């Protein structure tokens, strides 16, 4: 399936301007942080934090710039066999599009297997899967008779996989036609166990919330994952679109399914968890050119629930990875441990800036807000330099959103670590999502009925 190209990069003049602004911003930040050195006498801890967090974020951009993967081009007959696994629960409105995108990838038909797993949806998901299968018999459907969770859905796909490579695609993610072909090239190196594809937000223009997420996703993948991939240690191959070597997954499958944490079964963070099983022994890369689009929450409630889930899995998996990450490259190791320590300090930083400083010390938190906004602009400029879209300013909103809301989820996430209830999606039938206007409808098959059977 051929969709439109992502909105192209701005022209040369535009790029020069953007790079100039970014350079000025970075220089300004470094300059300002140099003044922080004076504060070491007054409040050494906060001054140190300020310098370290700035250095950490700027280093992500620097390392990402150094990541220039050159996976070999593969001839037709060299392409490995691939199994796409799409676990789904109550996604009747988008599953058809997802599956059609999978079926219509530009890949040799004899080496492509597509498995859709229905986790006992209470809406018409299974029926829609049936309709897609009726139109394209290549689709294999696994229907659970009781709800077991996404992890078991993925495992069911693994068990039926005939291909050499597993590609996990979320039920609301749409892979580009050339996405698979581009992703598999990274597996030419036999030491590579998993590769994260690049995922952008499909419904980026719906509302402020999705626009913020669009910028964040873009930077999280292009910058943060690249910085990790430079050391071949991407810590999370996102479930929206990632590839795994079957021979790497099969040995850990049972342990992955049986993972418990603090006495409860781990039912969330499946993608991060699986990556963690491979991380000690395999190279994990990132493919910036393998493109998919995913639907992100467009209501505050769903968004916050998702973020809470992500925080809990982040806590759990970071504790696991901390046990072996010290064996990796020193820069990767340091980055990893900082990536745990710095967010954990975030609530105190915000309290200091927004409570202690104005109310007790009677000073305006210039440094903090300036730093947050500067980083937000940096994110925005980075986005703007790669996409000729108006969304870059929403990086600022995201930064403010993070300070105001997301940072406070961390203690809540710790307190509710054992609560697995929100691991699965709700059992209520999903409401009809707003139309995804960016991408044209899949070609080929006639428009499918949208009413459930």
């Amino acid at each position, binding site marked *: 399936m051929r969709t439109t190209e992502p909105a192209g990069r701005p022209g040369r003049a535009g790029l020069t301007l953007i790079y100039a602004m970014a350079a000025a911003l970075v220089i300004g930040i470094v300059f300002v942080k140099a003044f922080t050195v004076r504060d070491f006498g007054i409040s050494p801890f906060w001054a140190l934090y300020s310098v370290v967090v700035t250095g950490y974020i700027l280093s992500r951009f620097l390392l990402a710039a150094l990541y220039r993967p050159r996976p070999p081009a593969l001839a037709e007959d060299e392409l490995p066999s691939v199994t796409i696994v799409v676990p789904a629960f109550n996604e009747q409105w988008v599953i058809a599009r997802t599956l059609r995108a999978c079926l219509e990838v530009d890949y040799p038909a004899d080496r492509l297997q597509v498995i859709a797993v229905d986790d006992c949806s209470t809406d018409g998901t299974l029926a829609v899967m049936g309709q897609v299968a009726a139109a394209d018999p290549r689709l294999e459907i696994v229907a659970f008779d009781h709800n077991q969770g996404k992890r078991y859905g993925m495992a069911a796909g693994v068990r039926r996989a005939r291909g050499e490579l597993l590609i996990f695609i979320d039920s609301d993610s749409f892979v580009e036609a050339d996405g698979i072909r581009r992703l598999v090239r990274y597996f030419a190196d036999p030491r590579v166990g998993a590769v994260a594809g690049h995922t952008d937000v499909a419904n980026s223009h719906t509302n402020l919330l999705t626009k913020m997420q669009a910028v964040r996703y873009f930077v999280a993948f292009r910058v943060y994952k690249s910085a990790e991939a430079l050391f071949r240690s991407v810590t999370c191959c996102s479930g929206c679109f990632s590839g795994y070597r079957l021979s790497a997954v099969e040995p850990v499958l049972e342990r992955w399914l049986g993972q418990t944490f603090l006495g*409860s079964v781990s*039912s969330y963070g499946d993608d991060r968890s699986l990556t963690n099983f491979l991380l000690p022994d395999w190279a994990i890369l990132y493919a910036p050119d393998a493109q998919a689009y995913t639907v992100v929450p467009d209501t505050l409630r769903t968004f916050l629930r998702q973020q809470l889930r992500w925080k809990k899995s982040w806590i759990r998996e970071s504790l696991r990875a901390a046990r072996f990450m010290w064996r990796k490259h020193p820069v990767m190791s340091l980055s990893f441990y900082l990536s745990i320590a710095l967010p954990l300090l975030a609530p105190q930083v915000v309290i200091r800036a927004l409570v*202690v400083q104005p109310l007790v*010390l*009677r000073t305006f938190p210039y440094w903090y807000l300036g730093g947050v906004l500067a980083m937000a602009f940096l994110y925005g400029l980075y986005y703007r330099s790669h996409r000729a879209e108006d969304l870059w300013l929403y990086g600022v909103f995201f930064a403010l959103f993070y300070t105001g809301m997301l940072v406070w989820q961390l203690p809540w996430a*710790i*307190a509710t670590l054992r609560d697995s*209830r929100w691991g699965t999606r709700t059992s209520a039938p999903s409401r009809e999502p707003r139309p995804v206007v960016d991408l044209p409808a899949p070609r080929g098959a006639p428009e499918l009925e949208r009413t459930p059977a």
Partner: protein
Amino acid sequence: MTGHRAGRRIGPVRSALLTAGTIAVAVAYMVIPTAAQLRSVVDNRQATGVARSSVGGQEPPAVAALPAAPLAVLRRLPVAETDAPPLILAYHDVSPSADRYTVTPAAFGTQMRLLAEAGYRTVTTARLLDWMAGGARLPARSVVLTFDDGVDGIFRYADPVLAQHGLTASTYLITGAMRDLPGYHLSWDEARVLGASGRWTLEAHSHDAHRRIAIDKDGRTGPALTNRAWLPAAGRLETMDEYTGRITADVAAQQADFSGHGLPAPRLFAYPFSAVDQPVNDPQIPAILRGVVRQSYAASFVNEYGAATSTPAGVATGELRRIEITRSTTPAGFVAAVARGTALPRDPKVFADRTVWTADGDRPGAAPVRGRTTLRVPAGRHVRSVLAPGRTTWWTDYQVSARIGGLDGGADGALLALAGTPDQIQVGVSRGWVTVRRGSGAREKMVAQRGLMPAASHRVAVTVTADGKVRAEVDGLVVLDASYPRRAGSWAAGGIGVAASADPATAATVLVDGLRVQRLT
């Protein structure tokens, strides 16, 4: 989620404990560092002897033990019993900063505690203005606290101390420098909070004239309010009209800023740099400046370094004098400053303190020792010793008397009343003559002269009353009985002194015995 129990099963007790554990970790994760943060901020402030803002209802920590000697001196300080002007102290910033005019919070706390323990009470702005308008007299140990420049430090450091001791004060804002957020100066919100607390009134310190401007073409600078500005574009000094317009506009801008921010109009004005009479680059300026200030404000302040209490003439035109407290003021120095700003009672017991007697040029003057003042005068010279002219500005309705001896050899001794004022009465006696002079300096005029029974000493008495009557007697003989009407700038009030002069050929030693002052009211 239903179903999977892959992995080991744990019992319900263990499960509950684990859940409790995660909740406990989450609570500790938030509470402990936050508490540590707040406490370190408090500790930081306590280290500088400073409290969190009292507006938040916090009590400042106790200041270290009060120095005993200064407290004792302060308690024993004689205070005037009549309608004397109050002690007025001038502060600027109260903060840990190292500026010359900034008092540290610990020092300020000590000073306020000294005042409180010595029985001083602050006078509110309203009470002060009422007193100036002829209302109720102020209690004996009254003090007016003023803080110039309206800096943020007074909100953070001074106010908690005032709150602790129940003191009131006023602050003088430079409105042109104030913003919505605190910086070096108070923010408008902070000023509002101070005003609403009932402890502070917000007063004026100019809108944008607390700075120095070029006053001639060579770039010399002077205070903006007391000089005609040099206009580089026009290549001249501004005219008096332009000057008047400029200072009037500054006053108007300040008052507009006050009302624009919903604050009551300021009634008091503190001259920037305490400059009124000088430095000026035009002799007409002081009168014009005073006129503008008088029109817009009920009272204004000028700072003094030496002994200074407000004069009756000054109070009648709304001008008050204050003592400046700086960073270098130790507790003993503070008590000395308080003494300098405290009016003396009309009582001979104050003569015993040698430091209150001044000769010309602020040098110490001869003080009575066991009732006798010895004035040694070199040949052809003149010697004076005046009782704290800055602290006796309100003396009136009294009689001063003494026996002046040692008048052989052409020496001349004198008793002064209303000393140092334009109405000074100097009753000078030599062996056979008495000469009464009125006025001081260039305006001194002889008003009476009589012969006396020649004697080595004469008894002199001078009586002055508030209605302008002066009566001088020598050896029981009335040599002057006159009535001088009050003029602008004269008030028939002033202190006492002694003086002597010697014949050009011979040095002399004039003795003043039994110097006494007695109040008539």
